């Protein structure tokens, strides 16, 4: 609970500081975080672009060299969700975003964490970014599109807070 109230305070002070792009991005995550605890993560704009259905769980996408990591928790109490299927795809050194070989899925461990090795992401459409999605049905689908700070980064994270479907 202390964590949540500090987030609200943080958001207030950020908003007071002025409307930066960062705030616009973060306020969506923090906005409903009041009475009901941890708020669900909203999908990001462009998150569903080049999505493919029925992607299998794999040990690694292509030859690897880059890590996509993150966590999956339940809205409200923030409990980690184990065994959740997370889809990952991106434009990489081994293929274009829409290519089948650029897609893969992984499952979260008992701590709700996931980690999948994939080829190095390179900028596409002017921004180095990946796609990470949950769409297995137990919870509402969430499509994230995290952006790398630098095109030279060798890892990227995405965090999900899911609400029941």
């Amino acid at each position, binding site marked *: 609970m202390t964590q949540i109230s500090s987030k609200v305070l943080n958001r207030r002070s950020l908003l007071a500081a002025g409307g930066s792009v960062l705030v616009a991005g973060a306020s969506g995550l923090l906005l409903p975080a009041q009475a009901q605890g941890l708020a669900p993560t909203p999908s990001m*704009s*462009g998150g569903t*672009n080049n999505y493919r259905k029925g992607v299998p769980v794999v040990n690694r996408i292509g030859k690897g060299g880059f890590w996509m990591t993150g966590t999956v928790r339940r809205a409200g109490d923030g409990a980690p969700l184990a065994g959740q299927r997370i889809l990952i795809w991106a434009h990489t*050194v081994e293929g274009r975003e829409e290519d089948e070989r650029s897609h893969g899925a992984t499952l979260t461990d008992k701590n709700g964490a996931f980690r999948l090795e994939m080829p190095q992401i390179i900028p*596409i*459409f*002017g921004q180095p970014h990946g796609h990470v999605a949950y769409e297995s049905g137990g919870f509402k689908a969430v499509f994230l599109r995290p*952006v790398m700070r630098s*095109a030279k980064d060798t890892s990227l994270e995405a965090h999900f807070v899911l609400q029941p479907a």
Partner: protein
Amino acid sequence: MRRISSFSRPDALLTGEGRSARAALIWGLLVAVIVIPIAASFTSPFLEWRGPVYIGAGLAGMVALGLLLVQPLLIAGYLPGLSSYRGRRVHHWIGGALVAAVLVHVAGLWVTSPPDMIDALLYQSPTPFSPWGVTAMWAIVAVAVLAGFRRRMGLRTWRIVHMPLAVVIVVGSVVHAMLVEGTMEIMSKAALCAVVVVAAIKVMVDLWVRQKKTRPMGSSPDGF
């Protein structure tokens, strides 16, 4: 007619030889500032993972940015060897080429990734540079369409219409180009963008100053 051709020509005082050396220098610099960034983009490591359509789309964008530099120089008569009449004619043709380059840019990106291009055109893109580019594109289209009516508008009205759109085109395109993380090499890209902005400002300021000088208060403006 006379008014338009009376842009101050600093080289008028130079001798023939000095003038041609100056002309060569200006043209050489112009070609270099446009061609170097395009040439540098061909050394980008990203090209290895791009198809020809995507590469062509990027190239069309760079060409469009280069043409943006030529446009104000042409209309102001700053390019040696082109009479101001011919400069205006070429300005119109380059305007058409600019529309074509932007169309190729958008079409190529659409083919490369339709959902991303559609997001951009609908102003729903997650990428911060897209709305700048799309806004500049609409301003270019607007100028091209309105240019068909410029004689009917008269010179003064046409300038009132064209100038704000030109500002939108230059600012939108430069911000768009600078924010994109693509195949362009950053230094040569920044240099081209800076020169595009400086050329546009210089020509607009000169035009404004000259208009103030040639038209005393209360005199009636006339078109051509």
